[in-house]
Structures are given as structure tokens and as C-alpha cells.
């Protein structure tokens, strides 16, 4: 076995104006010698526009466009990176899993918790690996912090405070920024403290962009062992796009962790104008490290389709809380069942 994983990129569309294949997965995989991009494909029922977009992207990137059926014979690739409309994910995943391919699925893993459950069942029955692209948990700052918590450096955690605020970018996500960003810090907190989310209360609204969906929200989360967390999620106006404030404060019985993935690791350059330059592994790079370790090295996946179900359920609960003004319980925990 060479250790090189052959990859097919599935679909270059996504919710709203997102094209994570082009912006994220293709450049990361193309730069990683452990992966070999063998082609691009599109789900046959995705419509003419999506077909045309994906074919065009294949040409621009110098990759072969494959008919979806070619992917299904199982000899072309062993890993699929799945983007495209979330409401088609169940069918796409069923087909890919049936062909025995492992997969990375762009976030959100599915359009609903119900769909996420179907995906989890499909991949479980097909015995393939499914990695929802919760890459933020693989940022080196969060990895270090999570390891510190797991090793007892701060004792038993009892509260987390997190900010996930992005400046600029393509505008407000069509379904609101809870649906867009919310799962990242929720999943990161799960990585940090490793306990079950029990209930969610959310407030927020459209304050920065004047759209009809929330561009900022505050999520109040309650976990097992009475751990509490607050997460702010927002997209704020600005000329430069990127993380503006991305922090986690983990408070434990014997210490506190201040985790700032937006600020570290990075060097500061001052030429009259101060700029920060991050270095080291990116969060997506960390996800690829983990995927490779699982596919080639036999490591146990720490994120699975069940993780996608849990985050979908948390986001759905937050949206319901935002709509109804009540505290909403979250009842997902599939790993314990299997």
C-alpha cells in the first residue's frame, strides 16, 4: 500500500454562494502529497446549472470530469469529498457509500437532523468512514487545548465561553449565521470538553446587513455535569474578510485555558503597518491529517457521521429556540447506542 489516497471531488456548489471545493478542499488536497486528486464529478440529479459549474471547474483546475457512475465502480478513488446542496446529501452519500468509498462531507452534513440520521445509518451499514468537515476542532490551538483538558491540566471543566465572529465575506448566509457558523464552535467545544450537550437557548437577529435572517446570535448551552457555555456567532461588516474574533475560554476546577485560534500561532510584522501572519498547520490541514491517519494508519475516527447528527441537532435546537424564545433540549447521542 502506497499510503496515497485517491480522491474525487463531488460537486462544486453549496448553500448560497459557497464553493468550498474551490476555496478549501482542492487547494488543501492539491498541496498534500498524501492525497492524489483523480477527478471531479457531479450528482446526476443536481440539475443543469450544477453540472455546468462542476464541469467548468474541472476544466479550470485541470482535473478530469468523471460521470458519477464511474465513481461508483469503486476503482477510481477511495475517498470522496462531498459538497453540493445539503438537501441532496442523503442520496449522494447512499450511492457513494454503496460503492465502498469513504468520504469527507462539507458542512452542514445534511439539511436536517433527520437527513443526518439517515446518512449516519447509511454509512454505518456500508461500513465506510464518514468525516463531516468539522475542521475547526483540528486547529492546532484547539488540539493543544483539548489535549490539555483531557490530561487534567485545568481539572474538571465547568464553563466555556466562545466567540466565533467573522468579518466581511460574501454576505449573510441565506439560512442565517447560526446554520452557517454555529456548528463550528459547538463542535469545537465538544472536542474541548467531551461532554454531551443537553439544551440550547438562542437569541439574535439581523443587525449588521439588514437581511431577513440572523447575522448575529448568542447561544447559551447546557452540558452534562452542569457545564455551561455561551457562544457568540456573527458576521460583521468589514473590508477584509476572515476571522475577526475566534476565542475559547475554558474554565476548570484547577485552572483556565485561553484559546485564540484567530491569533495564534502567528508572527507579527510591522513595516509601519502591522500585519499578522499565521503559521503551522491549518484547521483543514489538521482534518486531512486525521483523515489520512484513519484511512491509512488505522486510527480511530474522532468525528463520524454521528458527530454530524449531533451538530445538526444542536443547530436545529438553536434555530428553534431563536424562533420560539424557549430553551430547547437536545437529545442526540448516537455513539452510545452503537
Amino acid at each position, binding site marked *: 500500500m502506497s499510503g496515497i489516497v485517491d480522491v474525487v471531488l463531488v460537486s462544486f456548489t453549496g448553500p448560497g454562494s459557497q464553493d468550498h471545493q474551490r476555496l478549501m478542499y482542492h487547494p488543501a488536497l492539491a498541496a498534500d502529497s498524501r492525497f492524489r486528486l483523480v477527478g471531479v464529478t457531479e450528482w446526476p440529479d443536481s440539475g443543469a446549472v450544477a453540472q455546468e459549474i462542476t464541469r467548468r471547474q474541472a476544466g479550470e483546475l485541470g482535473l478530469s470530469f468523471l460521470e458519477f457512475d464511474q465513481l461508483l465502480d469503486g476503482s477510481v478513488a477511495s475517498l470522496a469529498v462531498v459538497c453540493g446542496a445539503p438537501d441532496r446529501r442523503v442520496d449522494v452519500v447512499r450511492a457513494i457509500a454503496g460503492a465502498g468509498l469513504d468520504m469527507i462531507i462539507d458542512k452542514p452534513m445534511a439539511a436536517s437532523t433527520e437527513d443526518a440520521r439517515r446518512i449516519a445509518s447509511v454509512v454505518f451499514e456500508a461500513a465506510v468512514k464518514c468525516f463531516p468537515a468539522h475542521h475547526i476542532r483540528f486547529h492546532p490551538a484547539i488540539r493543544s487545548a483539548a489535549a490539555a483538558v483531557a490530561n487534567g491540566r485545568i481539572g474538571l471543566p465547568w464553563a466555556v465561553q466562545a466567540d466565533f465572529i467573522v468579518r466581511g465575506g460574501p454576505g449573510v448566509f441565506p439560512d442565517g449565521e447560526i446554520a452557517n457558523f454555529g456548528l463550528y464552535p459547538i463542535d469545537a467545544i465538544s472536542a474541548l470538553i467531551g461532554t454531551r450537550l443537553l439544551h440550547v437557548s438562542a437569541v*439574535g437577529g439581523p443587525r449588521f446587513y439588514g437581511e431577513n435572517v440572523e447575522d448575529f446570535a448568542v447561544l447559551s448551552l447546557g452540558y452534562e455535569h*452542569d457545564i455551561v457555555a455561551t457562544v457568540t456567532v456573527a458576521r460583521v461588516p468589514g473590508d477584509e474578510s476572515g476571522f475577526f474574533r475566534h476565542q475559547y475560554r475554558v474554565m476548570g476546577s484547577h485552572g483556565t485555558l485561553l484559546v485564540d485560534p484567530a491569533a495564534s500561532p502567528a508572527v507579527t510584522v510591522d513595516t509601519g503597518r502591522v500585519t499578522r501572519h499565521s503559521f503551522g498547520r491549518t484547521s483543514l490541514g489538521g482534518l486531512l491529517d486525521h483523515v489520512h491517519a484513519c484511512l491509512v494508519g488505522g486510527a480511530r475516527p474522532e468525528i463520524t457521521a454521528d458527530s454530524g447528527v449531533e451538530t445538526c441537532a444542536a443547530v436545529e435546537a438553536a434555530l428553534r429556540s431563536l424562533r420560539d424564545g424557549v430553551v430547547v433540549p437536545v437529545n442526540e447521542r448516537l455513539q452510545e447506542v452503537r
Partner: protein
Amino acid sequence: MTAAGTEPEPDRPLGIGIVGAGFVADMHAVAVGACAGARVACVADTDPGRAGALAARAGGVPWTTDLDAMLERPDVEACIVCTPNFLHEPMGLAIAKANRHLLMEKPVAITATGAQTLVEEFDERGLVLMAAHTHRFYDYSRAIAERIRVGDIGTPVLIRCAMLGGWIWNDWRSWVLDPRLSGGHALHNGTHVLDLVTWWMGDEPVAVYGQGSKQTSGQLAIWDYLSLRVEFANGGVAVCEMSRGNRPRTANLRDIFVQGTRGSVSLGWTDEQPLAVLEETVQPLPGNGQVGFNREIAAFVDAARNGAAPAVTGADGARAVALAVAAEMSLATGRRVTLDEVMGRAAA
């Protein structure tokens, strides 16, 4: 403005009676001593030893164990109440009826009705009731307020304000640990943060969702860690943390962030004081906490003596109490509590 039926004498220092001679009374006494327009006229405390000691430290002024006796003194034109929280309302009412101005330690009262009653009693008599929300007088809070006031960041939308310490009250005899006496931590210390975010937001709060923990000891009857989410009428939201259960206990973490419609202003943990990296801990060097008390007394004297608008009104104090009561209700029930609900209960 005339208190106690005396004629105004602008050149004479305002005679202040300090009621309660515990820890915070010392800070107020020092502040009065530093204020050219005021002097400590008398100290009252039920413990004669404590009253006498503070009176001695304040320059050998008279002391008493009887509030009524203090209020009969013509040289006591105004009071500062520093007693346990549950006494604020009855003592405030006695002081209003004696026609004296009042700087009331926070919380103004431990019930929303009590706070509102005090506001009305002082208003009806044309007396100053100022809430001792000392944090409004420190440079850090004023710097945040100033950046908001000049319009740098537009209208505030999202505020995070965390004050995280590790000291708890000395032992189980401390009255603060008894919610019947203190009102709970949201009342006792939470009011500081709740008042600050309301001031910075410049809007009326409408609801609170409270989370917390009894961190220092599972035996606590109060939540010594508070995480309070406050909603405002214009849609803004503030996340307020107040903790006495953090570790390391000496770190004194503070985190302030205000996101407005056009930009943000923030003040991180190490943005005010030099950072000391010590064998036992890492902490910013402590600032001069007395400064806030000194400015607060100067503002109170200016209001009482010269009719200036109080820097923190009784209504501000009552609003903070209503928020804190809502927070305690939310902590107890696990649900979001509106200010209408609190005030409705107050009226019932």
C-alpha cells in the same frame, strides 16, 4: 437641593454619615477624606468596636450604634449605606424620611419592589439617591463608554463583559453567602456588570437568561459563577460573567468586547496593567481600586451639594436590581425571564 431642612452652605464640606463599618465602608471613608467638598460627620454600626475603629480611622469623628441617632445630627446631611444588602431598603427608607441624600452601596435593594420604592421616596422629596456602581468611575469603563459616545463603532449590538476572580468570602459566617441576606451573587456582584453593559448599550434591557455554577463549593447557596445573557429593546445582546470561583484565583481575568454596527472596541485581560509572570501565577498588576471610590464620592457630593445630575441614578440602581432579580429567577428556573415579569411581580 437642601437636605435635613438645613440651609445650603456651598462652602461648607458636606457632612456624610457612614452606615455600616465593614470592608467597603473603609473605601468610602478614604474617598470622603480625599474629597475637598465632603467630610465624614459620623459613623454608625451595630458593632460598637467596628464603628469606633472606623470613626477613629476617619479622623476621630463621632460614632453610634443607632441609625436614628445619627440621623438626628444636623451635621449629617447625607449618608452612605454600606450594610449587608437586605438592610439597604429599610435603612434607605429611614434616611429618605430623615430628608438626607444617599449614596447606596449596590445593590440598591434585594427586591425590585424595594429598589423602586426607594427611588420614589427620594424623588418625592427632591433628594439625591445615587447607586454606588463604582465600576462606572474607573478609567477602563469610561474609556469604553467614550469610544461608544464619540461614535467610533456605531450602535452597540453585542457586548461581552467578564470579570473573573477567585476570592470567595472568608468563611461560612459571611452574610454574602446567604441569599436571604445578600440576594445572591447576581445582586451582590452581578449588578456591577449588569449596570455596565446597560450603560454601554445605551438601551433598556428586556430579558435575562442566566446560567451559573456553585463552583467554589457544592454546599454554596449562591451561584458564585454567573453567565448572564441580557437582551435589550433594540435587539442588542450582552453576555455578562461575574465569577468568584475561577482558578487560578489570583489571575483576575477580565474580558470586555463591544461590537457595534460599524466596528468594535475591546479591552483584553492584559490591556490595562502590566502583566506579572510569577512563580505562583500570571496576573496583571492590581490597579488602584480607590480611584473609582474617590470619583464616585466627588460625583455624589456634586449632586447633593450643587444639584448636578447624579452620575448613576437611583433608577439606574433599580434597573440593575431588576436585572439581577431576573437573573436569579432564571438561574433557579432554567428559563428566560423578562423584566416585565419581574416588575409585574414587583407591582403585584
